[in-house]
């Protein structure tokens, strides 16, 4: 066997195993309804794995992520809405499980702080520009007018 045919066979084996594993995932979560499939994929991206912090459940291989995924699949198949499924998970794993934080007195600052910064900046700029105007005395203005007139 020469090197080239070895490569072809190797490539074939890799291609086969990759396509095989992809199809097995498809088989595991099958939907008759396309909108349900879309909802399942959406939730897989939005729900956060409680064990692994910065991974969503679709991305994570933790046991708990697999369990949540299986439950989401079951609930989606049952015809539950997105909000119902998210609150089902929040009831068990807290707000942490959803990547979109709810507005509470504590999280309100996430939205308020940038606005306060912008407001603060605007006020600062306004005061700065006002102060500059005051610094120009009447005398200086007259002088400027004279120069302009002479030209």
């Amino acid at each position, binding site marked *: 066997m020469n090197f080239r045919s070895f490569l072809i066979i190797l490539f074939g084996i890799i291609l086969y195993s990759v396509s095989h594993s992809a199809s097995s995932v498809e088989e595991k979560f099958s939907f008759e309804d396309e909108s349900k499939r879309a909802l399942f994929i959406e939730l897989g991206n939005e729900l956060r794995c*409680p*064990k692994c*912090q910065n991974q969503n459940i679709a991305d994570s291989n*933790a*046991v*708990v992520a*697999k*369990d*949540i995924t299986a*439950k989401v699949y079951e609930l989606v198949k049952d015809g539950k809405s997105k909000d119902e499924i998210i609150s089902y998970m*929040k*009831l*068990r*794993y*807290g707000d*942490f499980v959803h990547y979109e934080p709810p507005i509470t007195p504590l999280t309100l600052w996430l939205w308020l702080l940038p606005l306060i910064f912008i407001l603060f900046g605007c006020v600062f700029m306004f005061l700065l520009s006002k102060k500059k105007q005051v610094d120009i005395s009447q005398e200086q203005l007259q002088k400027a007018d004279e120069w302009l007139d002479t030209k």
Partner: protein
Amino acid sequence: MKKVAIFGLPLAFFLLAAVFLMRGLYSNPAERDSTLIGQPLPPFQLVDVMDEAIQYRNDALTGEVNLINVWGTWCQTCAVELPFLTQLKDQGVNVVGLYHELDSDPAFGVKSVDVIRTEITEMLKTLGNPYRFNMLDEGRRYSLDLGVTGAPETFLIDKSGKVRLHHIGDLNQRVWQSKFARLYSELESE
């Protein structure tokens, strides 16, 4: 006045950010308050891990203060905490096991129930058996209701069957003293 503002404001801002980040440095990212604190245990109907003819419902965990310990023979940290749990049992603490089944799940292993039972018996014989009984959580469905993220985890249940404390990770002398001991004796005397 102006100078104070120019140096003071950024300094104040820096200190604030430093304190905020310092806190993050020493906080435990795995620590999260369970949504069940103060709530009654979700309804369950689970079989004994050793004998599926024996069934447990919520009334099995009322009338006395109980610890529910989520564990499995496949879990290394659970093996580490078994001797300490046994010590607690010897002091009169009720410990109930919720067996976090993984090995018979087609997604993770292919062990038969008999093999799992032998493994449990072996492990409890060598490391100590703290459990009054062990409930089998097939497919980890009840663990999902409890918001369990993995084994080991421990819940403290009061006499009325309400969840009072949730601990993620192994239970040891330090955790027991700092987190459990006081509340446990309070609940005991209720």
